């Protein structure tokens, strides 16, 4: 019963929050609503016994991602609102509704299967974090490492793109200009 | 060396063309003549070494190319292809020798030599894919020749030529792949070897579909009505050399392919489609002859006349008897010689006047008598006068088809009437009457360079009209084995009747002996 109430409550909250995120014209509202939505989602994770995920959700999303976005918003000076002159908004909603209907139509049918076995079963006596850790560092070690590479890529990419060196485009400059630039142009190694 | 003479024949011009990049502009023409001359001599040697009494393939060569998919480098000639190869080398030589083009001559000669490679390759190939490779690649040099040296509409014309034929041959490629697949199903092996395919007896409904697929590729190349409209543009815009090669050789690829592929592979379908194709052929003959009559441009007259004559060739091919098929193969050569010569002749006047409109001429016979004479001879050959090369082919083609249908042959026979109408009226417009145009009064008669090409052609046109035997005999022998093969393979009762059985005849090789 508690589960049901919690589900419906958080479902409603998430839906409302995310709807605000996509519908509001105020970037600040959107950001705030999304942050709230993210936190409500972590509630589902706790509900579903995925404690580790829930924590990660809060830390990563509400902590890191939202901070980044907030930073971005400040940078972009979002007080100047982008005018959302939505072309053909009805198409957007028709498509949205159609997608929802279709997906839900399929999802209301129960999944019938006798062959699903849990390959990495959740054991009741073990804490979620421990279990996750166990799987993560065995089976998913390689993806985990690769994810590290991915984050490195993202980091390098982010730094390089936002770096100062991008302010001048060698691509567009004439050869002579570049030649003149070379003395004064300190090729910072990697920009960090 | 004789074992690889065909390889030599195919790749010598290409190799020479590559080396030609080094030759300077001034001497490239001499180089081209030398190369084409050597190539021509090689092809004559091929003829010399060819045993006319053997009806099957000679000088066979085989090398694996993509054996995993059954594609091999297979070459060989028989009586049907031998002379078209010689014709190709002959016309390349003549074309280069009588070249009057001044613009970027180096590119032109190199392109021509590449074109020669593809032409010889098409006729020597015995593997469907190798055949296709040359068939398709021949479009490229021709595209360049038309597009770079042609008239004001050259780009439209060349692109149309390219895309039209390209489309048709892609459908043909699907047909070839299907054929190979069928072979695979039947034997468990991939093979694109034509001679292997000959052994297959296909169910009739497969034959029909495959026939159509191949037909589309060939028909556009020939070109058959209603796929012919690229040709007038191509001829109209192409430089002289382009038209000559196009008319003399490239169109023959289509008709040759009918004899090489459609007939022996699909005997029942050939019989099934005989009447519809004959009707198309007759439309080609009469309709294009009428269109030719309405032309104002003399080159277009010759261009449309080509289509009309190709109609007779098609008719002869689908006579499905020795007389008709031999005749059509012979007519391929004949038409090559005659239409090539006519295009050369048109080029002569175009070089002088830079127009091809007949209304601009008139009375040329008195200004350029030698030119008018040669033109007259070639025109009469084109009209199919006996003792000229064309007559032998036309006579045999019509004679052959008469066996299949009286009425259609009677209708097709109007070729000799309508052909005379447009040719004579064109000749009259251009050569007879008084010289009305001031510019024509000072025209120089045909010069040595031009005669170099035209005299041999005239000689050939008459020589082979009087004494076709050296060529007709090998053709006949090979055609007999094709017809016998068709008869043996035919399944439907009608096909058995329509395609004559030659096995009772002395000296005829049966299918097993021939292939």
């Amino acid at each position, binding site marked *: 019963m508690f589960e049901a109430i919690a589900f419906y409550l958080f479902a409603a909250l998430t839906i409302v929050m995310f709807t605000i995120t996509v519908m509001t014209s105020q970037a600040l509202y959107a950001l705030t609503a999304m942050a709230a939505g993210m936190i409500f989602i972590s509630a589902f994770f706790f509900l579903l016994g995925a404690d580790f995920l829930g924590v990660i959700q809060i830390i990563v999303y509400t902590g890191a991602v939202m901070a980044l976005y907030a930073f971005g918003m400040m940078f972009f000076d979002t007080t100047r609102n982008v005018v959302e002159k939505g072309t053909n908004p009805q198409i957007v909603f028709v498509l949205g509704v159609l997608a929802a209907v*279709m997906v839900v139509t399929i999802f209301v049918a129960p999944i019938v299967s006798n062959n699903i076995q849990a390959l990495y079963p959740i054991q009741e006596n073990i804490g979620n974090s421990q279990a996750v850790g166990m799987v993560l560092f065995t089976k998913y070690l390689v993806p985990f490492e690769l994810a590290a590479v991915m984050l490195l890529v993202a980091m390098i990419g982010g730094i390089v793109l936002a770096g100062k060196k991008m302010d001048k485009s060698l691509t567009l400059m004439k050869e002579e200009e570049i030649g003149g630039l070379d003395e004064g142009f300190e090729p910072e190694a990697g920009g960090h | 060396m004789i074992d690889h003479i065909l390889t030599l024949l195919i790749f010598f011009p290409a190799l020479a063309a590559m080396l030609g990049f080094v030759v300077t502009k001034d001497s490239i023409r001499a180089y081209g003549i030398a190369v084409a001359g050597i190539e021509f001599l090689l092809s004559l040697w091929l003829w010399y070494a060819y045993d006319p009494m053997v009806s099957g393939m000679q000088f066979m060569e085989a090398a694996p190319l993509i054996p995993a998919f059954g594609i091999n480098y297979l070459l060989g000639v028989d009586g049907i292809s031998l002379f078209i190869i010689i014709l190709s080398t002959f016309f390349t030589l003549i074309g280069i020798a009588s070249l009057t083009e001044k613009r970027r001559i180096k590119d032109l000669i190199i392109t021509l030599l590449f074109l020669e490679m593809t032409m010889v390759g098409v006729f020597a190939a015995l593997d469907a894919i190798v055949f296709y490779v040359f068939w398709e690649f021949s479009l490229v040099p021709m595209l360049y020749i038309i597009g770079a040296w042609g008239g004001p509409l050259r780009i439209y014309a060349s692109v149309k030529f390219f895309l*039209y034929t390209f489309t048709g041959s892609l459908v043909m490629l699907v047909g070839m792949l299907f054929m190979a697949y069928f072979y695979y199903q039947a034997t468990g092996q991939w093979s694109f070897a034509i001679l292997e395919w000959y052994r297959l007896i296909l169910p009739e409904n497969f034959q029909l579909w495959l026939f159509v697929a191949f037909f589309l590729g060939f028909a556009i190349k020939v070109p058959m009505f209603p796929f012919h409209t690229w040709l007038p543009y191509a001829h109209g815009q192409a430089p002289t050399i382009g038209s000559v090669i196009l008319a003399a050789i490239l169109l023959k690829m289509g008709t040759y392919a009918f004899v090489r592929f459609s007939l022996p592979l699909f005997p029942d379908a050939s019989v099934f489609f005989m009447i519809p194709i004959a009707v198309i052929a007759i439309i080609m003959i009469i309709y294009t002859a*009428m269109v030719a009559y309405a032309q104002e441009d003399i080159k277009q007259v010759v261009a449309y006349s080509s289509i009309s004559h190709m109609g007779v060739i098609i008719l002869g091919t689908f006579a499905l008897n020795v007389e008709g098929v031999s005749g059509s193969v012979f007519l391929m050569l004949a038409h090559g010689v005659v239409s090539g010569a006519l295009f050369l002749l048109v080029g002569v006047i175009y070089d002088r006047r830079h127009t091809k409109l007949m209304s601009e001429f008139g009375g040329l016979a008195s200004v350029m008598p030698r030119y008018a004479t040669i033109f007259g001879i070639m025109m009469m050959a084109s009209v199919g006068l006996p003792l000229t090369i064309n007559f032998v082919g036309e006579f045999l083609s*019509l004679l052959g088809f008469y066996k299949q249908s009286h009425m259609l042959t009677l209708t097709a026979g*109007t070729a000799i009437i309508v052909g005379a109408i447009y040719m004579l009226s064109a000749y009259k417009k251009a050569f007879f009457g008084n010289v009305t145009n001031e510019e024509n009064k000072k025209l120089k008669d045909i010069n040595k360079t031009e005669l170099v090409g035209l005299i041999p052609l005239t000689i050939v046109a008459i020589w082979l009209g009087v004494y076709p*035997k050296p060529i007709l005999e090998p053709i006949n022998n090979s055609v007999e084995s094709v017809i016998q093969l068709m008869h043996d393979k035919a399944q439907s009762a009608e096909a058995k009747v329509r395609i004559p059985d030659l096995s009772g005849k002395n000296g005829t090789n049966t299918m097993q002996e021939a292939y």
Partner: protein
Amino acid sequence: MELYLYIALFAPLVGSLYSSLFARSPKSQQVGIIASGLLFTSFVSSTILLTYVMGGHTVHTEMMTWIATGDLYIPFGFVVDQVSVVMMMVVTIVSTVVHVYSIGYMDHDKGFNRFFAWLSAFVFSMMVLVMSDNFAGLFIGWEGVGLCSWGLIGFWYHKESATWAANEAFIMNRIADLGMLIGIFLVYWNVGSLQYDVVFSEIGNLQPVIITWIGIFLFIGAMGKSAQFPLHTWLADAMEGPTPVSALIHAATMVTAGVYLVVRANPIYDLIPNVGIFIASLGAFVALFAASMALVNRDMKRIIAYSTLSQLGYMFVAAGLGAYWVALFHLMAHAFFKALLFLGAGNVMHAMHDELDPFKMGGLRKVMKGTFVMMTLASVALAGIYPFAGFFSKDLILEVGFVEHHYVIYTVLLLTAGLTAFYSFRLVALIFHGEERYKLFGIHPHEAYKFMLVAMSPLLVLAIIAGSFKMTYFQLVMNLLPATQYHVHDHTTFWIMTIGTQLFVIAAILFAYKKYSNWSSVPDGSSAMEKSFFYKLLWNQYYIPKMYEEIFAKPYAELSRIAWKQIDLKIVDATVDAIANGIYKTGENTRDIQNGNLSTMLRWMVVGLVVLSILAVAFTVGYNVVGA
């Protein structure tokens, strides 16, 4: 003997090739002389062959293979037998005469050398035609004479009318040649050979209907070459060529090739009398039809051309009725006097500076004695007055008609004989008698070169005496042709007929003389006669040329234009271009799917997803329904 055969055959070819070497050089007398000499050689060889053949032999030789494929075997084979040797004689005699004559006639022409090249080539083709031992060889000659006829009619190629006539002749002949070709195909596919001997010996084994078709198609070929109705119009127009050409080709030799074909193919036509009747009827019709047009014509050469046409009709009557030897005999006799007539006309033309209207002449008798005599005698021969050649040959045809009980044909021919006499002497009277109307046009006529007249004299002699060869000839050809004697057995009838005919003809001659020998003015179309319907009908050749122009030539040209401009460019080609353009236009019209706007791009992705999921749901629902 084969040597003589080859000499007879190839001497003209050598002459032609020799002359053509000089074709582009200025006039050179030796060309004409050498060509004539070579033809004389040919004539001599033919004579030798004639004597040989008269000895009861024939010469049959095969030079080489021409076309051999499948079962078809066509050699260059030649045969000199009783029929072909007669034709050879006719051809070589007339052509030798014409060659010599031409040396004078073409004296001032720029194309002198070229003329001899063509003329000798023609003789060669004609020899091939008559000497060939198979239908294909015949066809070579058949087309060859057509080609030379084209070249010679259009000899003065700067003249529009000449080139037009040349093309007309060629094309009309081509129409007939198609019939002939089909005939040859029929022969080949039914007999398996084109050799005369094989064909004629096996023709009887065929079904009658096939023989009939063979006969019909071969005769269509003959109709074209011999200018039978309805393919006759080219002959009159062919008079645009130089007159020696008309004499040789369009009177003596080429146009009779049709008759020769029927005679040669007599074993075929013997089996199909119905076709024979048709041939005879057509011949009779053409005889009258052509003669009627000659009555009013005002072009000297055309009158003679119509006369030729009319006489060809006679020949076909004979041939159609099975009297092949009679047809051939008339052919021979006709060749002599008609060539003579033409050459005479040539002299007149020369004298009159190419004036052709006899009404503008008159009284030329005084300045052109020789020509006058020759033309008069030739006309007499043509009219069939005893004892000239025409009497023996032409009256014989009348007899044939009578004996074979074709009285209608007989009557028609009799009437035509009268007309023939009338128009022939109308011509003679107008040219040589009466006032010298030419003076009005300031012309000073003069007689032709002496040697031309001398050259013509053999023909004159033959025109006079040819009749006396009749029995010799009969003995000769009866080896090959059905030796039927055509005699009206009832003597009374015979004499009444013969004398009656003679009287009728003489009356016609006198009438012509009376009416035209004192003609004084040039008609200007104002007289009552010239306004009459019949005059106009005849004057316009029954409106047939005009009809052909309207029914065939113009619609064909128009149809051709439509075929090109409307069908080829606007339908066939436009369809191809429309497909290409359609594809291109589709691209132009839909390229905005990629409009560069990120929002749109994202929406397209969602659209794709939604479509896919709709399809998924639809399939699932369908699957469950069907599954259940």
